[in-house]
């Protein structure tokens, strides 16, 4: 890479290049944190010491795996990459509202990635899990400050991104696009950023208190001096439960984009999906955090109240599921690799979501909490549903980003290894979790009967590793050498396909579009009328399906 190219990328304010840099950064975090997962699985594959006889090392892998996957892969991947690249294109905007702040966000993100990676070379890496509960995070020899500063950087980056994108969607929609004509992905991203804006300050203050307690001698969480250890857990989960929706919602949005295009269908009950589903989740998200604290020693009445609110999450999620299933009804389905990932997500959201129901019940969680049942449950939602939606989205928008297809036999091979591998990994963990296998254990001498299950899980993890290696290599190769794709290869009705060329230049649209009230990003029923509802007819070939 010449110096010129480096400068062009480093100092860019173009939302698409910033998006690609988010993709590279978050995939880097994914690869490193994925290697940690393999180490964890290897260590668990046999009773007794397997690849390390030092539990501290194992605890540091766990810390890095959890913190990096959630905070440096899923959140920046979904709200950084996807929102940056596609949201302005979908709403017909030429860039985001504050391009320089956007550039600052990505610098902060890379700062956080570098800081997180440096934790491998310092003498006492953090070993406090991604949750960082005191008093352990205060008394440990591990470097809690690394954890806190990484979170600060990521938090600043996200809050700046949130303000930027909310202003962009409110003020920079192409003339004529009303609220009910937005893509579902736009809605879910707006909702995710609202959550980030409201809840990140709470996490930031919680970890700052942790920093003060450990290094400056304050006593926020020290009961001997009038502090309270439960305070941190309340603050942490007050952010970190909504953070699950910061991941879940954009993932759902991506799936809707793939399904509508590949089904050539409108969204079933759009308004129920947006106002009941997406905003229902936003509304309820701040009232359910105690389900992470069911056995933490909270007041009994609070554990009951939030059991009811937690179960009620099924209502907005159910509405989105109804819309997603409804979109398949009377569809005209065609398949590509993105669609394969999207279809697999239909089943992953069921297994991940429905296993959340026993965990919503306080009394049932008494037995299940902190076991590998919980661990398998949230991996189904976060590691599988959300990550698979991301991978599906990358395949689906690959021609848009690189002007080339990434589909083909390698893509399918990667998909099959991934989908089989994740089930081989996590189904055994559901089984032994329900029988009492605790999480975060370097060893399990008290449960020798679970060893075969751990071995199957380890086998599955290596299948996923093979699948992801194929997938990522395939992306890299296809970005440069893949089969050249025509404009709008999936024949979508959404603006990013009909009005912006593949590999859009700065400014995005040759002719910035304007639409009328009859236009819809899902107007497949009468595609020509839908295109006539825009001022610019779009690309040749976009107007109607290729002959």
């Amino acid at each position, binding site marked *: 890479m010449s110096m010129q190219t480096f400068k062009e990328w480093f100092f860019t304010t173009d939302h698409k290049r910033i998006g690609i840099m988010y993709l590279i950064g978050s995939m880097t975090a994914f690869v490193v944190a994925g290697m940690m997962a393999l180490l964890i699985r290897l260590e668990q594959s046999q009773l007794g010491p397997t690849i390390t006889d030092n539990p*501290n090392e194992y*605890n540091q892998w766990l810390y890095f795996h959890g913190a990096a996957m959630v905070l440096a892969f899923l959140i920046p991947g979904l709200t950084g990459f996807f929102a940056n690249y596609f949201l302005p294109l979908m709403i017909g905007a030429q860039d985001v509202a504050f391009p320089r702040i956007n550039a600052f966000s990505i610098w902060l993100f890379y700062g956080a990635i570098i800081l997180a990676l440096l934790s491998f070379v310092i003498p006492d890496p953090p070993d406090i899990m991604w949750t960082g*509960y*005191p*008093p*352990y995070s205060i*008394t*440990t020899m591990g470097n809690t400050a690394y954890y806190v500063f990484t979170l600060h950087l990521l938090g600043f980056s996200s809050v700046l991104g949130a303000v930027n994108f909310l202003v962009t969607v409110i003020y920079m929609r192409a003339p004529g696009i009303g609220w009910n004509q937005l893509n579902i992905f736009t809605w879910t991203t707006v909702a995710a950023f609202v959550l980030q804006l409201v809840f990140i300050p709470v996490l930031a203050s919680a970890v700052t208190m942790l920093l003060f307690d450990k290094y400056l001698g304050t006593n926020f969480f020290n*009961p*001997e001096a009038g*502090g*309270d*250890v439960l305070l941190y857990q309340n603050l942490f989960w007050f952010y970190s439960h909504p953070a699950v929706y910061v991941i879940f919602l954009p993932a759902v949005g991506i799936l809707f984009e793939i399904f509508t295009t590949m089904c*050539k*269908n*409108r969204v*079933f*009950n759009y308004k*129920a999906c947006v106002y*009941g589903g997406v905003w229902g989740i936003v509304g309820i998200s701040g009232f359910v955090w105690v389900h992470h604290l069911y*056995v*933490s020693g909270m007041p009994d009445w609070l554990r*009951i109240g939030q059991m*009811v609110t937690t*179960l009620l999450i099924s*209502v907005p999620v*159910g*509405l989105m*599921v109804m819309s997603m*299933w*409804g979109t*398949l*009804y009377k*569809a*005209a*389905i065609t398949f590509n690799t993105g669609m394969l990932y999207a279809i697999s997500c*239909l*089943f992953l959201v*069921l297994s991940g979501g*429905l296993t959340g*129901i026993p965990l*919503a*019940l306080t*009394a*049932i969680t008494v*037995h299940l*909490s*902190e076991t590998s049942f919980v661990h398998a449950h949230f991996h189904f939602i976060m590691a599988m549903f959300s990550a698979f939606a991301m991978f599906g989205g990358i395949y689906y928008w690959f021609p848009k980003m690189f002007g080339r297809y990434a589909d083909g036999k390698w893509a399918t091979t990667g998909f099959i290894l991934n989908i089989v591998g994740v089930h081989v990994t996590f189904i055994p963990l559901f089984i032994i979790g329900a*029988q*009492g296998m*605790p999480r*975060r*254990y370097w060893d*399990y*001498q*008290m*449960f020798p009967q679970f060893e075969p299950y751990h071995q199957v899980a380890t086998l599955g993890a290596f299948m996923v590793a093979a699948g992801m290696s194929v997938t990522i290599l395939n992306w890299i190769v296809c970005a440069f050498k893949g089969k050249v794709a025509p404009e709008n290869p999936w024949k979508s009705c959404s603006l990013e396909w009909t009005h912006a060329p593949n590999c859009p230049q700065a400014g995005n649209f040759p002719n910035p579009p304007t639409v009328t009230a009859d236009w819809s990003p899902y107007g*497949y*029923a009468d595609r020509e009328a839908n295109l006539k509802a825009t001022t610019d007819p779009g690309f040749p070939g976009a107007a109607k*399906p290729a002959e």
Partner: protein
Amino acid sequence: MRTFLGKAAALSGVFAVGPAFAQDEGYERDPAAGWDHLWHEIIVDITVIGVIFSLAAIYMVWKYRAKNENEVGKGPKLTPAAALAWALIPASIFMADDFFLSAKGWTLWNDYRRIPDEAKEIRVTAYQWYWEFDYGDEIVSEELVVPKGQPIVLRMTSEDVLHSLYIPEFRVKEDVMPGRVTYVWFNPKETGEYVHTCTEYCGTAHAEMYTTVRVLEQDEYDEWFNQIKEEANANSLPNNTQS
């Protein structure tokens, strides 16, 4: 459109009834048995929902494949009334299931938290990385020994970081923390040895912070208790003279 509504209404009816497959059986105030009972009920509930939605997805993905390249979907454009119905009816069904499960869960939760009057109290202190069980009168052990058939309440606190007391066989778990006292109770019905382990991450030896819970017949328990009492007395005398 109408057939779609009809089919879907029939399907949603089925899974609303799903939970009723599992029947109510009374259980004596025993949270462990109550847990197993409710667990099976929920497994039935979520399996029914999961199977219905999975089959619907498989059927539609198969049935609605595009016949030719230019085919477009014919998904219904809902009237405002139909849209509202398609939001309110599923929402009501989900809520009905939620409240049904909430009521069940609340009942069991009350059993978990209401300590029987006859319960015997043992105080638990957690340290990095071992447990201490205090039976009163300065009788202390590092494993938990209880008589069969006697409800036990553990009052727990920690001397350092967070821990969590977990006895899978009795389906009980509660965090143990410095500065507060938490409790669990259980009713050991069978003699035997059970695993008891720590389930809140507490550092290096977190995974080694486990002991055994021994449930003994009353006379065996008395024997054990007298023995440990004698040991405690024997140990404390020389210590006192030394100091």
